């Protein structure tokens, strides 16, 4: 079977819109009566007034800052964000807290299963099937990462190998020992496993991984292709978050990602006004409403994820709206010497054109009145002194073309830069004021 839910995945657009509007009104009514945040926020807004997608603009966006404020209320620890009786909550999760105090997310058995059902779409369209023995190379904890993947894979009928509690070498040996043939990991950690395998004299492609689903950080196309090349497997991406759930995934065509409709109503709004839905090919901010999750109602949640809107047609036959590309987080976009800069561009250049670079780090600092942007690059150990110098010059040149910025490139000794398990922190803005 090609689709997880052939009915939903091939519905005509007009039917999907009709269903999503109906679900939106339902969750709006529910939020107004069950969540303190929305009791206040939606005063004077009646669900009946929402007749078209255009009417959504009448409803204010939900921002993380106000969520933090409502979280401080009773009942502890979810406060005014809770959408159900606290005794129905079965699992606590939280956001990573990289942009401030973490948001605590309550799940009931029902909301968790709803979330898992949405995730089944992501895994199924990435080709995960019951014959897959899926290795999860992480310790699960208070973060949602990989819990969803675990339970969705279980629901699909895959066999799960939880690989936490081992170091990377131990995980590589376990993959070989149990003949795991699928994996879920961050792109960064996928690259790290490949590097470690090589250091053990093991070709990553001999690990036997057929499918890899990446999560946790934006993955440039060049990185996805590099992982495919290293592991000789199919690599897929998805996008999501702790608050809104995983809301889009990649199909076998591997061109952008399908929004999981009608689980999520996703608006892609222009980043200047957050009012206008962008056109196909334009970049905008993803605003997400999970349409059936009641433990933690979210209406028009501003994810701050910058995405390029794709088409609503795909050779795979799915009719859902697509995201062409994930550009990155608005929080990661910086003005450096007046130029808007995204760290993802650097990763794209390195992974595509510089296979001899193993790891890198970008540092922006202010020296006097000037912004200085530095790339610390770590080459493979087998590179000669002259080829290191040549790589340095080429890096400077290519990065200038790609970003319009002159980088101070420093070549570091092999193994000197940090390696990451989950979200990589390769970008450091050390300026006091971050324009």
């Amino acid at each position, binding site marked *: 079977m090609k689709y997880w*839910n052939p*009915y*939903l995945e091939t*519905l*005509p657009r007009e*039917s999907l819109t*009709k*269903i999503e509007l*109906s*679900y939106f009104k339902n969750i709006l009514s529910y939020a107004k009566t069950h969540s303190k945040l929305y009791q206040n926020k939606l005063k004077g807004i009646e669900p009946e007034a929402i007749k078209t997608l255009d009417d959504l603009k009448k409803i204010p966006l939900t921002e993380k800052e106000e969520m933090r404020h409502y979280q401080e209320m009773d009942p502890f620890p979810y406060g005014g964000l809770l959408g159900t009786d606290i005794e129905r909550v079965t699992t606590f999760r939280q956001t990573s807290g990289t942009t401030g105090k973490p948001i605590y997310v309550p799940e009931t*058995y*029902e909301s968790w*299963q*709803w979330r898992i*059902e949405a995730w089944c779409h992501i895994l199924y369209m990435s080709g995960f099937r019951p014959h897959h023995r899926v290795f999860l190379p992480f310790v699960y904890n208070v973060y949602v990462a990989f819990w969803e993947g675990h339970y969705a894979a279980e629901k699909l009928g895959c066999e799960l190998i939880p690989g936490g509690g081992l170091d990377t070498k131990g995980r590589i040996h376990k993959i070989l020992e149990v003949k795991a043939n699928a994996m879920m990991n961050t792109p960064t950690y996928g690259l790290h496993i490949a590097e470690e395998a090589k250091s053990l004299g093991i070709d990553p492609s001999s690990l036997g991984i057929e499918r890899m689903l990446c999560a946790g950080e934006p993955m440039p196309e060049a990185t996805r292709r590099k992982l495919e090349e290293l592991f000789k497997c199919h690599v897929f991406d998805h996008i999501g978050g702790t608050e809104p759930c995983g809301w889009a995934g990649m199909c076998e065509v591997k061109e952008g990602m399908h929004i999981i409709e*009608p*689980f999520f109503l996703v608006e892609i709004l222009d980043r200047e006004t957050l009012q206008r839905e962008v056109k196909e090919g334009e970049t905008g901010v993803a605003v997400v409403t999970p349409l*059936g999750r009641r433990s933690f109602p979210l209406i028009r949640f501003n994810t701050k994820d910058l995405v390029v809107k794709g088409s609503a047609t795909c050779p795979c036959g799915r009719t859902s709206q697509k995201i062409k590309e994930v550009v990155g987080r608005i929080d990661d976009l910086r003005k450096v010497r007046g130029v808007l800069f995204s760290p993802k561009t650097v990763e794209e250049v390195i992974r595509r054109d510089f296979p001899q670079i193993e790891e890198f780090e970008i540092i922006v600092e202010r020296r006097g009145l000037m912004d200085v942007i530095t790339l610390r690059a770590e080459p493979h150990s087998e590179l000669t002194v002259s080829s290191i110098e040549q790589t340095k010059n080429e890096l400077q040149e290519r990065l200038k073309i790609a970003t319009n910025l002159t980088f101070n490139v420093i070549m570091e000794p092999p193994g000197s830069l940090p390696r990451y398990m989950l979200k990589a922190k390769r970008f450091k803005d050390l300026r006091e004021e971050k324009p």
Partner: protein
Amino acid sequence: MNEQVREEIKKIEESALRLQALAKDNPAIVKNAEIILNFVYILKFITPEG
């Protein structure tokens, strides 16, 4: 979506609710019926009228 599918989901819901009423002094049956109702909620969600 076939109307018959929605009808069957409705029957499961009614049956789970009856089960809860019949065995209200048995936490195991009540909880398992409640879990069935959680899945009924999802089944309804994934079978909307197009």
